[in-house]
């Protein structure tokens, strides 16, 4: 079944956390 293969997919599940962190970082940097 295709799901057996999906489990090997490399997905950045935490991307939204890093996007938020990056946005906060640059907002801080820009006062």
């Amino acid at each position, binding site marked *: 079944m295709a799901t057996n293969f999906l489990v090997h997919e490399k997905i950045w599940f935490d991307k*939204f956390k890093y996007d938020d962190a990056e946005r906060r970082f640059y907002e801080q940097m820009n006062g």
Partner: protein
Amino acid sequence: MAAGTLYTYPENWRAFKALIAAQYSGAQVHVLSAPPHFHFGQTNRIPEFLRKFPAGKFPAFEGDDGFCVFESNAIAYYVSNEELQGSTPEAAAQVVHWVSFADSDIVPPASTWVFPTLGIMHHNKQATENMKTFMAGKQVTLADITVVCILLWLYKQVLEPSFCQAFPNTNRLFLTCINQPQFRAVLGEVKLCEKMAQFDA
């Protein structure tokens, strides 16, 4: 026009991008996705394969002329014609725009939502809420093909009618595309989900 062999596991939405593009462009793509030519977890460990595709990722494409490339967006681009790639600088930039946006902003939340319903990872409520809607393009380009292939699992598993009525543009894009003969030739009949699948403990 490109011609060659695509190595992939079956039902790979990343491979669908190139296969649908080939339906539009007429590129001859021969798929190897089952034994004896393809064994997932083995084929990509054979030295011969790794010499051509060092990262061992799928899908992987080998042109009849020996040209090898393995990133799915690059394969889809290579088997496309100018219409699909965007025939003006602005159209080409918008194709790059939607392909990047789809990979960076749709794939993570869509996978976070669908994978638990397939029982292949734990459920993450917060991330699931991050799902967004996307604009419908005019003429089919790689941008539409990429977005539709990424949304496929969502529409098959969790986007029940009551939920996705909030995204008319996305529904129109998705339903219009999957009923194009070039999409149907690759995806077959896409069975849309009636009831949002729940986390499969």
